[in-house]
């Protein structure tokens, strides 16, 4: 039995310790906002926070979770009130939306470290893949959320 905090609540799961955290949050905990994309930590669709840092949970064994606080997209806010979520809506960022949970979690970790990220910081931090190509709107939304002038019309 493994025990760790997810979105502020203590959760217990009885799974094989090698199970990726991604599948534990999706299957055992029913938090399906975190998505499976590649299984090799390349695409970032499964990004969640471990103690506030972005982690690609498809490659993070659940055995490493105890003692840490996990935050998933469902825990970013409970009412779509996180500044990034609001900016994502204002900029109408998502297309298919499948990558956007991970995109938002990566962005949330970025703006915690860099309250006003530069273009270059956004370039290096936002390595999540979006097949639809929402990248320019992702950049705009991060800037909007951090109170920086819009780069594009």
């Amino acid at each position, binding site marked *: 039995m493994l025990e760790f905090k997810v979105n502020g609540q203590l959760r217990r799961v009885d799974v094989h310790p090698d199970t990726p955290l991604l599948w534990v949050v999706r299957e055992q905990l029913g938090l399906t906002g975190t998505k499976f994309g590649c299984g090799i930590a390349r695409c970032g669709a499964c990004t969640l926070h471990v103690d506030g840092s972005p982690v690609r949970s498809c490659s993070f064994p659940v055995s490493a979770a105890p003692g840490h606080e996990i935050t998933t997209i469902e825990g970013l806010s409970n009412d779509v009130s996180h500044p990034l979520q609001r900016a994502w809506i204002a900029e109408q960022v998502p297309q298919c939306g499948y990558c956007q949970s991970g995109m938002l979690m990566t962005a949330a970790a970025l703006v915690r470290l860099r309250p006003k990220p530069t273009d270059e910081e956004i370039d290096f931090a*936002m390595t999540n893949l979006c097949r639809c190509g929402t990248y320019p709107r992702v950049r705009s939304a991060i800037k909007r959320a951090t109170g920086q002038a819009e780069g594009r019309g």
Partner: protein
Amino acid sequence: MSALARLLSPDSAAEGMSRRVFLFSTAIAGGGFLLGAASRSSGATISGAGAVSPQPGEFPLTPWVRITPDNAVTIVVSQSEIGQGISTTLPAILAGELGADWDAVRLETAPYALAYRNPERQWMFTGNSESCQAFYDLMRQMGAAAREMLTDAAASRWGVSPDACRTEKGFVLHEGSGKRVSFGEVAAEAAKLPVPAKPRLRAAGVPDLVGKPIPRVDIPAKVNGTAQFGIDMQVPGMLLAAIRTAPTLTGKLRSMNREAVAGMPGVRAVVALENGAAVVADTYWQARMALKKLPLEFDPGPNLDLSSSSVLAEYRRALENGPWATPVNEGDVSAGLGRAVKKVTADYESPFLAHATMEPMNCTASVTSDRCEIWAPTQGQELAFFALKQALGLKDDQIQVNRSPYAGGGFGRRLLPDFVVMAALISKAAGKPVKIIWDREEDIRRDWYRPATATRLAAGLDADGNPTALSVRVVSPTILHPVFPSIGEFLRQKGFDPSAMEGMLELIYDFPVRRVDFHLFKTSVPTSVMRTTGYGPNTFALESFVDELAHAAGSDPYRYRRRLLAKNPRALRLLDRAATLSGWKKPVAKGRGRGIAVADAFGSYIAQVIEVAASGPEIRVLRVTSVVDCGRVLDPVIAKSNIECGVIFGLSYCKSEIAFDKGAVVQGNFDGYELPYLAESPELVTEFQPSGEKLGGIGETGPVPVTPALANAIFAATGRRLRSMPLRRNGLRLGFARPPKGRGYA
């Protein structure tokens, strides 16, 4: 209208009707059944046949609109939301025509049913950028029909003329008396009225929801994790399945040792597939762990010598030798080339590409001996329905095809029913509802690829540099056959795939004489529709070639295109605007260059200018300027995002390709099949210049000119002409659009 749309259109040619019925309603995969409704006239699908069943307390006015007494209006969404925003735009057309309160409208995902077919095709699918084109009138009519029924019911209650009533924000109002009643209060009476066959549309100028930016209905759920994709579907008692198929394309399962995993945690069943195996378990990860331990032996199949170089050699042989079908033969091309003072010939090659939707293929199925129900992230409900019917030997009323509310990208991949049938067969074998989830490797290695093509263009130029003739040869496998199997007969008779010819059958440019030959390339590589279909590779070849002609004529590529577009004011206007907007005439710094391309694709025109900076192997795409004429713009924000996301998608066509070795697909994940990153994304400048012409598609238009505009820009920057994609075939790669500091960039 696109060449494909015209070919498939019922009213374009004498044989159009028979061809349409032939294409969309005859035998699917040799099944030999006819669709009963194939001859129904478009727009007249107000039958209720197979529509969503109303919930208790709901009153259905048409298959598209249901209203409860407490005034909840539900509108059915037939078209698959694969990211394009269709689940906002189409219901908004209906709601505006109805006079509903948009903020209070509920949306519901349609199952497969005749009522929800594309009215122009009589086939339920989402693709070919035609949802708005095909459904616009129907949405208007369905909104108007419901409005008329509600208005008639209210008017009769009040004893007034319905002509003196109107609707607004979910109420019927009587102008003279100021009476008002909610839709819900008269819904029961309205539902008893006959559905008007020819409902009157609102007068022009009455405010509705068309042409305005409407916040997308799907976005709030996509920023808090609650949007339900196929992979998130839950069915009571459901098990999970992991899949492994043969490493080679044509491999088959020879044997496996089920006993090896029988006692593993959670494992409930091991199912043999024709070309692989599935482990069914309580959870997906249990299934994955067991699958890894399952000894599988494969018969590798007949095509072990398939490799990228062997395929390329075959393409090149076909490009020399044919044989050819000749869908276009206008004038004496030999004579035209003969009188030229200069002849230009060039060969172009486009690669095999994978869809790589972010959500891998998955499907949930519940199959018993006499019933099949599936829930899938699908674009191809009708093909899935018939494929299930054939695979399971069930009757029409024993099969229910449901779409998950959202699909993580589509790009044509989800038109195919393979993953749906696989889920059904596994559920049947396991005797339980099962959700299958392909891992990324299965998703990429079991794709139906955008076909590679080889194209040869030859033109003659006169002393002024004007073309005297154009000859085109295209070598491509089929695109349409897997999604419209009944086109097989057409392919055999005519020898060309109309989708693979898109962008070559009709040109925006004026060539005095012209011939197009097509060779239907046979390959063991599965190929089918992918965003841009034939327009992608054909526009790459044609627009690169026109650039080469400009160079041969000693002319600026923009000015040269102006010459060839003298008789096409619609294209010329966009070209001029793109040149102005991109600052075409302004000089660029050393190492930089601009490329231009223009296309008529999916019923819309697009002109694009790409500016790059080239530094050694690195190509930084700085800015992409797109000017689009899609007739009219239904929603400016959604339309813009379709074009702009399409541009980034187009860059993916320049970045990676699917390769083959020893009969197998080389790439299996995003480490080998690389997609563009945010850092590589250029500044985007996008403008709509609607002409008021017939509504065109926008879902696939954006990426069409990207490959040639980029190749032309690289030529302008470096003097090096790229005649193949992706960039890495040419030793080039994408770089950061904004140069990181301290790395020696200019």
